[in-house]
C-alpha cells in the first residue's frame, strides 16, 4: 500500500502501460495484476481524505474514502478483474486499454471528494467506454456508440453546468449532499439521472449495451449506471421524488423485456429495472434504504456481469443472441447454461442467492417507511424480473425448442470468470453478513426469516407457474425478429426528420437570400457599368467641344453661386 495513492490511478496508469507490454500472456498477466493491486491499495487505505490539489482558487479532494465509496470501489475492482479474466483471449488493444481505463475512471468517480474531480472521471468514463461499443466494428455499433456517447457527454456537460452553478451559489465544490433545493442541484440531478437511466432518459442503455462487443457489454453493465447510483446516494439521498422515479424505472422496462428478442437487450431492460430498485433505496434515504441500494448495486454488478458473460459466450459461440434463433443450447454449452441459471436465480432473488439478501433490504426499507404503493409495484417488478430475466433468458437460450445450433462450450477463461462471478453470487446469498459488514451504515438485518423465505418462494413459484401456463396455452408471445419502439424513436426517427426538414428550409431560405442579393448586386453592377463601363458615358473620350461646354457651364454655375 502506498500512502495516499488513488487506486484509480493504478488502473488508469496501468491501462496505458499495458500497451507497452507484448500482446498475449505478458500483457494479460500485467492487466490481471492491476485490479488486484488496486483492490489491495483500496483495502489498505484507512477512511479519510487524501491527495488534495489546489487548482485556481479551488481545492480538489481527489481521494475520499468512506463507507459509501469503499463498497463501490471494491466491487468495481472485482468487476474489472472478472472482465479481464473473461477477456483473456481477446486480441484487441483498443478493448484492453478501454477495459482498464473505464473501470479506472469509475473508481476515480466514486472516490472523488469534490465535484470537479467527479466531473473529470465522469467524462473519462463516458469517452473510454464508447470504445467498447465501437470495437464491435459494425455499422450498427458505430451509430449506437455515437448515440451513447452523445447521451453520456450530455450528462457530463449538465454536470459541469450544475457544478458551476453550485459553486457560484455556495462557494464550495465538495461533493456531499446536494438536494434539489440547492442551486444547480437540478442540473446535477438530471446529469446523474441520465447515467442512472431514469425513465425518459434511459434509452441510451438499451440502445447501446447490446451493440457492444462480447466483453464490452460485460464491462459496460458494471460501471456507468452504478457510478450514477453512487452519485445519487451521495448527493440526493432521501429525495422523495426518487422513490417515484425508481418505482417507474422498476416497472416499465419489464414490459419491454417480455417482448424483446435480443437477449442481451432483455438484460439491458432488466438492468434498468434493477436500477429502479436502487433508486428507490436512495430515495427512501434511511440508513436501511441506502444500505439496500449499495448492497443491491454490489450484487447487481456481479449477477448482471454473470448474465451478460453467459450471453456473451452464447454470442461468441452461436453467433447470435436473438431469442427467435436460439434454443436447446444446453446440449452444447451445459456449463454456460448452468452458470447462467445461477445468475438467473441471483437476479430473481431466490433464497441463498445474492439479490435475495440485498433486494429485501430495499423492500424492507420501503415497508418501514410506509410506501405501500411503491412496495406493491416493486413486488410486481420482482415477479416480472423473475419472469423475464430468471426464466426467459435461460429458457429461450438454452431450452425451449431446439434450434439445431451445435457449438463448442464457452472457452475456459470465460467459464472461469463466470464461475467466479457465480461463486460470489452464491457466497453473498449464503453469507450476507460479509457484504453487510462493508455497507456504509451498520445494520442488523436477517434476511432469512421464515416469512421472508416463504413469501419470496411463493412469489417466484407462482410467477413461474404463470409463465408455464401461458406458454402451454400458447398465449405467451413468441419471440419474433423485430425491434420495439421506445423513447429512442424520438431522437432516432423524429429528430432526424425534423432536423433535416428545418435545416433544409433554412438552407433553402439562405440560398434564396443569397440569390436575391447576388441578383441585386449584379443589377447594381450592370447599372454602374452602363455609365461607367468601358463604353459608358463617363469613360469614353468626349469631343473637345463638349468638354469646353462643360467648363463654361460650370463657370456659369460658379458665378451664379458666388453672386448669390
Amino acid at each position, binding site marked *: 500500500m502506498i500512502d495516499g495513492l488513488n487506486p484509480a490511478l493504478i488502473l488508469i496508469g496501468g491501462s496505458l502501460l499495458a500497451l507497452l507490454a507484448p500482446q498475449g500472456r505478458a500483457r494479460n498477466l500485467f492487466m490481471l495484476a492491476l485490479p488486484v493491486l488496486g483492490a489491495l491499495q483500496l483495502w489498505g487505505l484507512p477512511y479519510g481524505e487524501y491527495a488534495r490539489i489546489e487548482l485556481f482558487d479551488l481545492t480538489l479532494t481527489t481521494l475520499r474514502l468512506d463507507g459509501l465509496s469503499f463498497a463501490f470501489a471494491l466491487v468495481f475492482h472485482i468487476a474489472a478483474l472478472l472482465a479481464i479474466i473473461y477477456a483473456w483471449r481477446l486480441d484487441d488493444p483498443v478493448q484492453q486499454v478501454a477495459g482498464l481505463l473505464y473501470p479506472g475512471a469509475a473508481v476515480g468517480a466514486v472516490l472523488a471528494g469534490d465535484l470537479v474531480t467527479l466531473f473529470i472521471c465522469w467524462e473519462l468514463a463516458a469517452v473510454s467506454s464508447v470504445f467498447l461499443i465501437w470495437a464491435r466494428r459494425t455499422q450498427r455499433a458505430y451509430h449506437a456508440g455515437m448515440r451513447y456517447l452523445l447521451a453520456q457527454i450530455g450528462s457530463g456537460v449538465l454536470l459541469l453546468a450544475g457544478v458551476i452553478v453550485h459553486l457560484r451559489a455556495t462557494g464550495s465544490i465538495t461533493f456531499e449532499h446536494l438536494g434539489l433545493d440547492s442551486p444547480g442541484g437540478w442540473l446535477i440531478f438530471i446529469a446523474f439521472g441520465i447515467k442512472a437511466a431514469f425513465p425518459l432518459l434511459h434509452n441510451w442503455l438499451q440502445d447501446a449495451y447490446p451493440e457492444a462487443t462480447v466483453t464490452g457489454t460485460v464491462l459496460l453493465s458494471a460501471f456507468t449506471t452504478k457510478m450514477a447510483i453512487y452519485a445519487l446516494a451521495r448527493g440526493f439521498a432521501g429525495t422523495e421524488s426518487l422513490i417515484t422515479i425508481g418505482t417507474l424505472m422498476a416497472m416499465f422496462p419489464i414490459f419491454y423485456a417480455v417482448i424483446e428478442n435480443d437477449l442481451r437487450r432483455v438484460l439491458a431492460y432488466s438492468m434498468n429495472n434493477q436500477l429502479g430498485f436502487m433508486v428507490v433505496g436512495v430515495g427512501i434515504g434511511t440508513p436501511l434504504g441506502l444500505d439496500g441500494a449499495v448492497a443491491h448495486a454490489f450484487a447487481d454488478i456481479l449477477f448482471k456481469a454473470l448474465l451478460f458473460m453467459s450471453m456473451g459466450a452464447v454470442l461468441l459461440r452461436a453467433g447470435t443472441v436473438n431469442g427467435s434463433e436460439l434454443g436447446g443450447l444446453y446440449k452444447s454449452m451445459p456449463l454456460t447454461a448452468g452458470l447462467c441459471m445461477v445468475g438467473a436465480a441471483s437476479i430473481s432473488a431466490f433464497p441463498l442467492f445474492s439479490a435475495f439478501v440485498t433486494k429485501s433490504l430495499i423492500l424492507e426499507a420501503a415497508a418501514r417507511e410506509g410506501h405501500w404503493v411503491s412496495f406493491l409495484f416493486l413486488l410486481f417488478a420482482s415477479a416480472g424480473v423473475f419472469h423475464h430475466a430468471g426464466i426467459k433468458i435461460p429458457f429461450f437460450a438454452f431450452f425451449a425448442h431446439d434450434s439445431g445450433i451445435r457449438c463448442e462450450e464457452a472457452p475456459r477463461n470465460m467459464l472461469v470468470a463466470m464461475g467466479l462471478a457465480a461463486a460470489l453470487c452464491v457466497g453473498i446469498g449464503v453469507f450476507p453478513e460479509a457484504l453487510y459488514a462493508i455497507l456504509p451504515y451498520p445494520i442488523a438485518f436477517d434476511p432469512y426469516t421464515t416469512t421472508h423465505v416463504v413469501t419470496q418462494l411463493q412469489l417466484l413459484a407462482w410467477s413461474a407457474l404463470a409463465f408455464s401456463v401461458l406458454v402451454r396455452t400458447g398465449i405467451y408471445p413468441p419471440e419474433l425478429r423485430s425491434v420495439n419502439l421506445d423513447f429512442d424513436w424520438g431522437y432516432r426517427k423524429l429528430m432526424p426528420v425534423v432536423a433535416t426538414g428545418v435545416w433544409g428550409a433554412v438552407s433553402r431560405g439562405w440560398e434564396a437570400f443569397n440569390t436575391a442579393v447576388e441578383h441585386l448586386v449584379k443589377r447594381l453592377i450592370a447599372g*454602374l457599368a452602363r455609365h*461607367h463601363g468601358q463604353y*459608358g458615358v463617363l469613360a469614353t*473620350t468626349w469631343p*473637345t467641344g463638349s*468638354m469646353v461646354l462643360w467648363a463654361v457651364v*460650370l463657370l456659369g454655375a*460658379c458665378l451664379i*453661386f*458666388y453672386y448669390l
Partner: protein
Amino acid sequence: MTEHLPVLQVVVPLIAAPLCALLRPGRAVWLLAMVTCALCLLIAALLLDRVLAQGVISYAMGGWPAPWGIEYRVDAANAYMLLIVAAIGAVVMAFARTVVEQRIRLPASKQPWFYATYLLCLTGLLGMIVTGDAFNVFVFLEISSLSSYVLISIGRDRRALTAAYQYLIMGTIGATFILIGIGFLYVMTGTLNMADLAARLPAVADTRTVRAAFAFLTIGISLKLALFPLHLWLPNAYAYAPSAVTAFLAATATKVAIYVLLRFFFTIFGAQFSFGTMRLDAILLPLALAGIFSASVVAIFQTNVKRMLAYSSVAQIGYMILGISLVSVTGLTAAISHLFNHALMKGTLFMALGCVSFRIGAVSLDRMAGVGRIMPWTMGAFVIGGLSLIGVPMTAGFVSKWYLILGALERGWWPVALLVLFTSLLAVVYIWRVVETAYFQPAPEGRATTGEAPLALLVPTWTLALANLYFGLDTSLNAGVARRAAEALLGVGP
C-alpha cells in the same frame, strides 16, 4: 550661395534645358539632365531644411523688393512641394533614359529635345511653386503646360496626338481663366504679389469683380488639376503618353495645380473668405466625392491598365480636394500629405507599367496575363504601389487615408468617412484585377517570353516603391511637414 537657393531652384533647370538641346545626342545629354534634376532635388532638400529651421524665406528677384519686384517666397507648404516635384523629376529622369532610347523610337537626333522639354516642364512646375507672384504663376504654368503637351505627343501611340490636342485646348482654357482671374485681382488691388494681394483684398472683397475673379480661378485651377467633371482630358493624355512622361506628369502636374489652388484660396483670399464667405467647400466637396466614386468605378471597368490608373488619379485628386474642403488642419494635412504619397504611389505604378510595356509592348489587361511570373520584380513594385494606393498600413497611402478619415470624423462627417473607406475597397478591386491577371492567368498566345525589365528601369521603380514603404512607417516628412504646411496655410501654426 545658400541665400540664392530659391532662384537657383528655377534657374538651374531653365539653363540646363537649352544646353541639352544644344548638346550632341548621346549619353551626355541624359547625364546633364540627370545632374540637373539631382541638383534640383538637392536644392529643394536644402530649402526645406532651411525653411523648417528658420521659417519663411523671401527672395527678391534682381534685388527689387516686393511688392514692386518679383518675390520668391518659400514657406513650409511650397518647400514641401518643391521636394516632391524635384524628387519625382529626378527619379523619373533616371527611368527615362532607357525609355527614350529604346521605346519611344525618337530619331537619335531628336532625343536631346526630349530632355530639354522635360527640363522645361520641370522648370515650369518648380517655378509655379516657388514664386510669390501671382502673374509669375501664370507664366510658369504656361511653360510647364506647353512643354507637357509636347511630352505627351512624343509617344509612339498616334492617339497621343489627339489626347495632347485636347489637353492643349482644355489646358489653355484653364490657363486663360486663371489669367482672367489674376487680371481681375490686379484691377481691383493693383498688385500681383501674393502677400500684398492677401493684405489688400479684404478691403475690396465684397465686389462683383473679386467674386468673378474667384469664380474664374476656381474653374481655371480645377481644370488644371482635373477636378471631376473637368477631368476628361486627363485619362487619354496619361494613357497614351510615353510611360516616363505619364509617371512624371501624373506624379507632379496635377499636384502643382492643387498647390496653386491652396495658394490662391488659402494664402491670397484667405480661408475665411474662400470657405466662410464664398462657401467654396460647397462646390468642392460634392465634386470631390462624385469624382472619387465615379472615377473609381470607371477604373474598375477599364481594360487598359494605364487608363485605369489615370482614372484612379482622378479619384485620388478627389481625396485631396476632399481634404481641402474639410477646412481643418487635419483635413489639409491629409490633402497635402496625399500630394506627396500619391506622387510616390502613382510614380511607382506608372513606372512599373513602363517596365511592363518595355518588355511586352502593351499594358492592356489581357496582354499582361501571367506577367507576374516572368517579371517578378516589376510586378512586386506594382503590388507595393497598389497596396499604397489602396491605403494598406505600412505604406504611404495609409498615412493620408488615416488623416483624411480623422479629419472627416473630427468634423463629424460620418458618411464622408464611410465613403472614403468604401472607395478604398473599390481601389482593392481594380488593383487586384491586375494582380490576379498578372499572377494567375496563363500567358496569352504569341507573347514573347522576355524576362525581367532592365536594371536601369527597375532601380528607379523600386526606389519609389521602397519610398512607399518607408514613408508608410516614418511619417515625419510626409505627414509631419504636411501638418506644418497646413498650419501655415491656415495661419494657425507657430
